[in-house]
């Protein structure tokens, strides 16, 4: 009986250390990819010339954004059969591609405007730069934060299950 208890104690200690070792290992991950999100943006850009003449452009862009999270600040404690995770870190934009610079386009230009070509080029450039700003702002979208955190919760739950534990999350 005593022998059995000692073996059980050693085995359980070993298992605990193994889980905690693994958790410490994943905590070293700086950029843990959580999800990819497609975003579409529409920009209406108007150039006003003399005598009220306008060159107007409507440009729709499409981008793929990858969200990731730094697991460095992941807080957890092991209590019996549970691994209790503290507040999960916020996700941030890790990388992105403006995959379709002109997903959709229309223009309304003054027919004899000599600068229409130059305006068009500038409008495309502005649309792309504005898309990048909009992508950065996605980090503040509560839908994205909530959805990403759910994916992270699913991952952590599955991870600790491999060690026979159950995950709990402090809201």
């Amino acid at each position, binding site marked *: 009986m005593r022998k059995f208890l000692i073996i059980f104690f050693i085995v359980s200690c070993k298992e605990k250390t193994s889980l905690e070792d693994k958790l410490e290992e994943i905590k070293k991950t700086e950029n843990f990819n959580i999800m990819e999100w497609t975003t579409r943006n529409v920009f209406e850009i108007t150039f006003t010339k003399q005598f009220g003449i306008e060159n107007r452009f409507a440009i*729709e862009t499409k981008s793929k954004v990858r969200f990731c999270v730094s697991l460095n600040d992941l807080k957890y404690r092991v209590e019996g059969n549970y691994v209790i995770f503290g507040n999960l870190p916020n996700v941030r934009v890790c990388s992105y591609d403006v995959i379709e610079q002109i997903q959709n386009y*229309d223009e309304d230009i003054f027919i004899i405007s000599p600068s229409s070509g130059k305006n068009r080029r500038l409008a495309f450039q502005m649309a792309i730069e504005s898309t990048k700003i909009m992508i950065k702002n996605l980090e503040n979208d509560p839908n994205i934060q909530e959805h990403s955190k759910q994916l992270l919760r699913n991952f952590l739950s599955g991870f600790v299950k491999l060690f026979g534990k159950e995950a709990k999350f402090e809201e």
Partner: protein
Amino acid sequence: MKNKNITAIIGILVIILIFVFFNNFQKEVVKMNKSLFLVSVKEIKELSVIQVPYHKIVKNKKGFFCEITIILKGYVEGYINLENLREDDIKIKDNVVYITIPKPEYRFNSNYFSVFKENTAFCDKISLINETIQLGEKMILEDAKKDGIEKTIEGRVKEILSKFVKSLGYKDVQFIIKDSLIQ
């Protein structure tokens, strides 16, 4: 000495039994029976789970001097209709709730449109605008589908309902998603 030990062990056992009984008793009080549970879920009726902004440039050309381009803005809303849930859709076994839910749906809610360019000399402008808005709504829903919104909505529905069911005192919840056409 021996008697004292036995009394101490019995005392500890009694304390453990009281603790276990009290703990289970408290859980039973929180937990709802199936009918009450169904009423609580049905009270939610339509549960909105996500809103994703979508914008679109929509061109509509009906012929010579009858064309328009509009910019349509709004959001795609994912939701689930729980009003038609029946008692058979909920099964409770070993503190786990098995719930059959309809397939989550989504719709586009427009909150703004502007006419970017128009040439409506030979047609009715109002009906052309309405037709173009409808066309834009279809295009946006197709975009949302391509972007994988169905999967996102499903995930959110499960997450929100899981929290709700667990708050009623159940340990876990499993979902079976049926086709929404049954409604």
